[in-house]
């Protein structure tokens, strides 16, 4: 298996990141739309309170994860929100595990976040399995959360709590 390295994304990665989210599976599993401009990703990779990481196989960007924190919402400073995608041709090869592992380590051990949250389409079994492996639990179904391939689709809201050792 090719060695995969995780590193911080920079604004210069925006074209490759847009490419990941333009793949049919990654697009349908997230909130992206076809034909979106790659520039959309420029701000998202280097925004304030945003920790964006990418997975690299050699020179190839094969996955991306973003951890958004709430710098401007003091009462939610313990929370991080996660969005991620693995390039279609790299799914099922452990890229998601590496990306999520890196973000969970960042959140738990360095940012002192105690609640991580995300949404996942209710029929995305592979992703749900990944999140459950890291201790995310289902908190409820949000019905008709987003439009996907011609119809409204439900998502699971998932959350992961960490208790702080005092």
């Amino acid at each position: 298996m090719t060695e995969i390295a995780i590193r911080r994304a920079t604004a210069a990665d925006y074209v490759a990141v847009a490419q990941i989210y333009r793949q049919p599976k990654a697009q349908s599993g997230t909130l992206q739309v076809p034909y979106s401009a790659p520039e959309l990703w420029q701000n998202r990779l280097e925004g304030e309170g945003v920790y964006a990481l990418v997975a690299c196989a050699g020179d190839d960007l094969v996955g991306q994860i973003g951890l958004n924190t709430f710098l401007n919402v003091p009462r939610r400073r313990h929370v991080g929100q996660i969005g991620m995608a693995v390039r279609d041709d790299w799914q099922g090869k452990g890229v998601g595990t590496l990306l999520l592992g890196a973000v969970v380590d960042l959140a738990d051990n360095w940012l002192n976040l105690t609640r991580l949250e995300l949404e996942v389409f209710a029929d995305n079994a592979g992703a749900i399995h990944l999140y459950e492996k890291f201790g995310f639990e289902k908190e409820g179904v949000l019905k008709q959360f987003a439009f996907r391939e011609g119809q409204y689709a439900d998502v699971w809201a998932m959350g992961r709590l960490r208790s702080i050792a005092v």
Partner: protein
Amino acid sequence: MPEYSIRRAAAEDYEAFHRILSGPKVIWGTIQLPYSLPEMWRKRLAEPPDGMYMLLAWAEAEAVGEITLQTFPNRPRRKHVGTIFMAVRDDWQGRGVGTALLKAAVELADQWLALTRLELDVYTDNAAALRLYQNFGFEIEATYRQFAFRAGAFADTYGMARFKREMA
């Protein structure tokens, strides 16, 4: 029940907004902080983000509550959705202000903006707010554990949603 007039909030209403959102009960029920600056609201009202509708309820010359309906013009796959935030001034709670505000926001969403899913978060122990939302057809979808910090401890919220009835 007194009559309230519901109007779009303008930049010059920022002090009224600030007053509503500074009451201890309102701070408890939202994610506001004590000692916020009025200036923050002036900016928000003068330059609202795309798709944000901010309304005030007036009892004669007094602004007694606010509601914000946020839509997602930059998220095409969620453009059927509106998120609601609201607050009734501490000294006007329990007098129908919330009902008047939510009625206005729901009508805007149903009759004019073509939204089909309205959503909001409410602390699980905020019984009065829960009752109000249930009166308008909101149902609990999720329990978010430790959603926000409140009065010294993490507090849970419910995610609630309401769907527009099918058109005949």
